[in-house]
Every structure is written in structure tokens, then in C-alpha cells.
């Protein structure tokens, strides 16, 4: 467009793809949230909860999450290396094939082509597609880093490199399957081993899609948006290496008190507790960056997205490790508490950072001013309120259900039937649905704001 030949149409394309899949994924989320207290919406097999839940997780994790990551990655890679994208047509092909793949993924999951391995449910033909798309992305990543004009790689690039390498390993290893037909396969692993591989994958895919690249955004867009340098480069080095080292040991905290060998569970707990340190390294780095400039929380509409976002990240990275402790896990596992935990991370941390990054980036790559700062603020408060009510309701529900499962009468018999525990949650499910609607409105405002931004005439001055 302008600048020195940077490839920005792909950045814009992925950003709007992310918004599209976010809206779709949230509609599915609202549908299944309703089904949780009223099964009337299970009108056909394609809309039944068991199939739609997977569409929701994959649509948002792979659809919204990866699209947002590709958008910001293609932007940050070019800006931080001061180099145009080496293979722009490859990136454009990546963009089109990505959206086709996500659409096919959603349809295939609704049709029941489901491996049941969480966040790896796509059947094998689409798995191959995902690997091909990842290689297409990785080619540009390494080509631009090798050709770069800026000698020293900034923090965000470290996180993007780690993400590129690790997701490849995770996705391939966990999706090794023997095909039965074109649409059906069986895992090569069995029983406890399959569980162990799955949750090594499941936890780390969350880590390397929802943490690592979002930290890359945080470390780039926070300084850009506020004009303030990151507080400590040394702290960022220590945080990065200890984070990517420790993360890979923690998967089995999803398998506490299951038949997996105890030592693997205990090692997972130890490293999960350790993981608090590198995570909070980034949290501290974020807060201290604002030191002496806290008035920006009022004067700069973007500051609050980053600071509240990193706060949720801090809470998440305390709550998660604590959930791995056996005593707490015995209470919370399999309840809505964990569902609450997931959504504080996704609706709190991830969405806020991507929102702020897009608000900064889209005007830059399209040569327009943001349509409305006021709407951005409304968006912020809606998603904050929606997410908090959503999350806290699920924590309360989780405690209630866990307690009812464990309750015994004086003679030692169980006090409640399973159904008692479930039906006691319906009021919380209704509140959760309302909170989801509020959050969704915030996202619609966000989407509208960016659409209106690009519909404006371009600014006459160079960005």
C-alpha cells in the first residue's frame, strides 16, 4: 500500500478472517450454552451438543486464535526485521487455504468426523492440510528472519520462533493416526499412553497458541501503543527460556488421579508450580513498563486492554498450577470450575491482547484512523463485564457440583444423585448464557469498529 513494499494485505486478510471466525465461534458458543440448560436446541445431529462443542473449541482456537496470530505475526515479522515478506504470494495462498480449511473443519466436525482427542479432533485428511499450511507459514517465518535487515531479534520474534517449532512437533506427534476410511482413523497410541500424549499436546497447544504468540503481541504492541520500552530485557530473556522449557513437562496435570503412572503426574505438578515464575516474569515486566506512566490507563484507550489482559494472564497462571495440586484437583476436576478457568484465559487474556493489537495494527496497515475510540472503550467494558460474570458463575457452579458429588450422609451414603448435582447448576447456566450475550455484543462492537475503520477513505498522510 504505502511504506517500503511491506506485504500488508495478508495482515488485513487474516485480521478480518479472525474476526469472522470469532463471531462464528461465539454464535456456536451461545448455542451450546443454551443447550446446557435447555436441550430443545439439539434439533438435528449436526447441532447436537456433542458435535457442536468441538466446532466451538476448534473454531475459536484454530479459527480465531490462529488467524489472529498469523495476522499479527506477518505484521510483527516485517516490522521487527525491517524487511518485506519474502514470499507474499505464498502468504496469500496461506490466507485463502487457511479459511477453506477452517470452513471444512467446521463442516466435518458437525458431520461427526471426530477423533475425540481434544483440540486435535480433525480427521487425518484435514490434519495433513494443517501441516501443509503450517509449513507454508514457517517458510516465510524463517526466510524473513534469515534475510532480515535488523540484526538483533526482538523478544516477540523469539516467541514466534518457539511457537513455529513447537506447534509443528505437538500437532504431528499427537495426530499420528492409522486411517480406516477417508474420514475415519484410529490413534496409534492406546489407553494411558494415548491419554498422556493427548494432554501433553492439549496443554501445550494452549500454551503455544494462547500464551506464547499472545506474549509476542504483548511485548510488541504494548510498547508501540504506549511509547514506553519494556521494563527489563534481562527479565524477558529469563522468562522466555524458562517458560518454553517448563511448559512441556506439565501436560499430565490434566490427568491427576487417573490411571496414568503417579510419577508423571507428580512431575507435572512440580513443573506447573514452577511455571508460575516465568509467567509472572512477563506480568511484572508488563506492569513495570507502565511505571511512572500509569495515567495512560486513563489517557490511552489501549493501555487498559494490555494491563487488564496481562492481569488475567497472571490470575490464569496462578489458578492453573494450583488446580494441579492433588487435593484441589480431586475437588475441581470434571466440574465447571475448569470451564471457568479456560474462559478467563480466552475471553480475558487472549481476546483483550488481540483486540488491542488489532486496534493498533489495522489503522497502520490500511492507512486509516480508527473509526471510534469511544466504541473501543464500550467494547472493552462489555467484554470485561461479560467475561467476569461468565467466569465467576462457572467457578461457583464448579464448587457447587464438586461439593455435591462428595457430600455424604452421616451413615456414609451419598447425599445427592448425579442428576441433583447437574440440575442445581441450571440457574448458573442461564446467567452464563446472559454473560455470553453481553460478551458477544462487545465483540460485535469490536468487529463493527474495525469494519467501519477500513470503509473510511484512506488518510492523505503516510501512516
Amino acid at each position: 500500500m504505502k511504506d517500503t513494499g511491506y506485504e500488508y494485505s495478508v495482515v488485513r486478510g487474516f485480521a478480518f478472517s479472525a474476526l469472522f471466525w470469532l463471531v462464528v465461534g461465539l454464535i456456536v458458543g451461545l448455542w451450546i450454552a443454551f443447550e446446557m440448560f435447555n436441550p430443545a436446541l439439539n434439533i438435528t445431529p449436526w447441532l447436537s451438543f456433542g458435535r457442536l462443542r468441538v466446532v466451538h473449541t476448534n473454531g475459536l482456537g484454530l479459527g480465531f486464535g490462529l488467524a489472529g496470530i498469523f495476522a499479527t505475526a506477518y505484521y510483527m515479522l516485517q516490522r521487527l526485521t525491517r524487511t518485506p515478506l519474502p514470499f507474499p504470494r505464498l502468504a496469500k495462498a496461506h490466507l485463502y487455504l487457511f479459511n477453506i480449511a477452517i470452513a471444512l473443519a467446521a463442516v466435518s466436525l458437525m458431520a461427526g468426523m471426530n477423533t475425540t482427542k481434544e483440540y486435535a479432533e480433525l480427521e487425518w485428511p484435514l490434519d495433513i492440510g494443517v501441516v501443509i499450511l503450517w509449513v507454508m507459514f514457517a517458510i516465510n517465518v524463517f526466510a524473513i528472519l534469515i534475510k532480515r535487515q535488523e540484526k538483533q531479534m526482538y523478544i516477540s520474534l523469539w516467541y514466534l520462533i518457539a511457537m513455529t517449532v513447537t506447534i509443528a512437533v505437538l500437532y504431528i506427534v499427537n495426530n499420528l493416526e492409522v486411517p480406516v476410511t477417508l474420514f475415519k482413523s484410529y490413534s496409534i497410541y492406546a489407553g494411558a499412553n494415548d491419554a498422556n500424549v493427548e494432554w501433553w499436546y492439549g496443554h501445550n497447544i494452549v500454551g503455544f497458541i494462547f500464551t506464547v504468540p499472545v506474549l509476542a503481541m504483548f511485548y510488541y504492541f504494548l510498547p508501540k501503543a504506549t511509547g514506553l520500552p519494556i521494563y527489563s530485557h534481562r527479565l524477558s530473556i529469563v522468562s522466555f527460556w524458562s517458560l518454553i522449557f517448563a511448559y512441556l513437562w506439565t501436560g499430565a496435570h490434566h490427568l491427576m488421579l487417573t490411571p496414568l503412572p503417579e510419577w508423571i503426574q507428580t512431575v507435572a505438578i512440580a513443573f506447573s508450580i514452577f511455571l508460575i515464575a516465568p509467567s509472572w516474569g512477563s506480568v511484572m515486566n508488563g506492569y513495570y513498563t507502565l511505571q511512572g506512566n500509569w495515567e495512560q490507563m486513563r489517557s490511552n484507550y489501549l493501555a487498559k486492554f494490555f494491563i487488564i489482559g496481562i492481569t488475567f494472564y497472571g490470575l490464569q497462571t496462578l489458578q492453573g498450577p494450583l488446580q494441579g495440586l492433588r487435593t484441589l484437583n480431586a475437588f475441581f476436576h470434571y466440574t465447571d470450575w475448569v470451564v471457568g478457568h479456560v474462559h478467563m484465559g480466552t475471553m480475558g487474556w487472549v481476546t483483550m491482547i488481540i483486540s488491542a493489537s488489532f486496534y493498533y495494527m489495522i489503522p497502520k496497515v490500511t492507512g486509516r484512523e480508527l473509526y471510534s475510540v469511544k466504541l473501543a472503550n464500550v467494547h472493552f467494558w462489555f467484554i470485561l463485564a461479560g467475561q467476569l460474570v461468565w467466569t465467576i458463575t462457572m467457578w461457583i457452579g464448579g464448587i457447587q457440583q464438586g461439593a455435591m458429588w462428595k457430600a455424604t450422609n452421616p451413615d456414609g451414603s451419598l447425599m445427592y444423585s448425579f442428576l441433583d448435582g447437574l440440575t442445581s447448576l441450571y440457574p448458573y447456566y442461564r446467567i452464563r448464557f446472559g454473560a455470553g450475550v453481553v460478551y458477544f455484543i462487545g465483540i460485535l462492537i469490536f468487529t463493527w469498529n474495525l469494519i467501519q475503520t477500513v470503509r473510511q477513505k484512506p488518510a492523505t498522510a503516510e501512516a
Partner: protein
Amino acid sequence: MGINSKPVVFALLSAVVILIGTVVTVFVPLFMPSTQPVSSYVKPYTAVELEGRDIYMREGCNNCHTQTVRPLRTEVLRYGEYSKAEEFAYDRPFLWGSRRTGPDLNRIGGKYPDSWHYKHMQSPQSMFELSNMPPYGWLAANRLDISNSFRKTSIQGFGYTADQVKQQIADYKARVTASGYDSKATRDLVTPANLRGELTEMDAMIAYLQKLGRDVKSLGAKR
């Protein structure tokens, strides 16, 4: 720091760093006996049970139901004997689940007669008014596709011959279509007339559910 200007070295180092935890906690256990204990009392799924398992997976039942009873007093009280690793030797993929919107199913085998399951799957709300489980009556309206049944058991490594698979299917069909079948009335209620003489997807699903935990229970009965 030197490596911050060497992207390829940086990438290789990152790869090594992430593989350390991976090798110790995932790759090494793949070769340890403790993650794959074998027990003679655990039997592989029959061809029909495996088809039922695939339907369970297709419908995403694992999103609401777990199959792991933990070694906790109230859990054992509610569900039965806690789950052991050897029970899952033939589970590819595993179906331990991660959420209980519905109860754990690891010991559901033999707990209810087939008729209970026919009725419940067709309309959970007819038995439990406040249940949020989706109705699955349409499973009984789908003829069971057995064109890949032998191939599936071969890939799973169960060791059946093609004839054995044919026999398993024929035996189960004979069982549920017999005039003396103890759940005939309920089965006929949920199954369309043109399929009552055939195996449906619901028949297979129930075969699978009745297998869960059955081996452990029969071991307990022997003692």
C-alpha cells in the same frame, strides 16, 4: 546475547529445549510397562461393540461423559471400582473424558438392562425430566454400517478373522432381533418397523455401553 542474532541456531536451541520435557514425560513412558500393563481378564471389543464405540466418538459423547473412576472414596461409592490402566489396553483412542455434564460411564456395563438404554437414548427427558442430554432416537433409525467392521478390528489389532467378525455381527443381530429378547418391547418401540430385523446404530451403541467395566465386574464376581 549471541543467539538473538542467529535465528536458525535460536530455532534449533528452542527445539532442543522443548524436547527435553517431551522426551522425559511422553516419549520415555511410551516404552515403559507401567503405562501399558496387560491383563488377561480384559478382553478386546467385539466388532459390534467397536462400531458402537465409533458412534460414541462420532456423537462426541466424551464431551459430557468421562470413563475414569478416580481412587476417591465418594467416587468409588458412586461408580464402583476405580479405573486401572490395564482396562484401557484396547482403547484407541482413549476416552477418559475431561468433563462430567453427565455421569462417568466406566462401570456402566451391566448396571441397567438394554431396555433402559433404548428408552434413555431415545429420550433422556422421558426418564429424567430435567436431563440436558440430547435425544438420540435417530440412532435407531440408522442401519448399522458394517462394511468396515473387519477392517476396523484388524487395524485395532484385536486378532479376529473375517469369519469371526461375521459371526460376532450375526450373533448380536440374532440376540437383539430374537422374539425372546428381554428388551424386545422397548427396542421395538424406538426402532422403525423396517429396521427391527436389522442391526441399528443404537443396537451397536448399547452393545458398547454394556461392555464398559464388564470385565472388571466379572473378575470381582469370580473372587
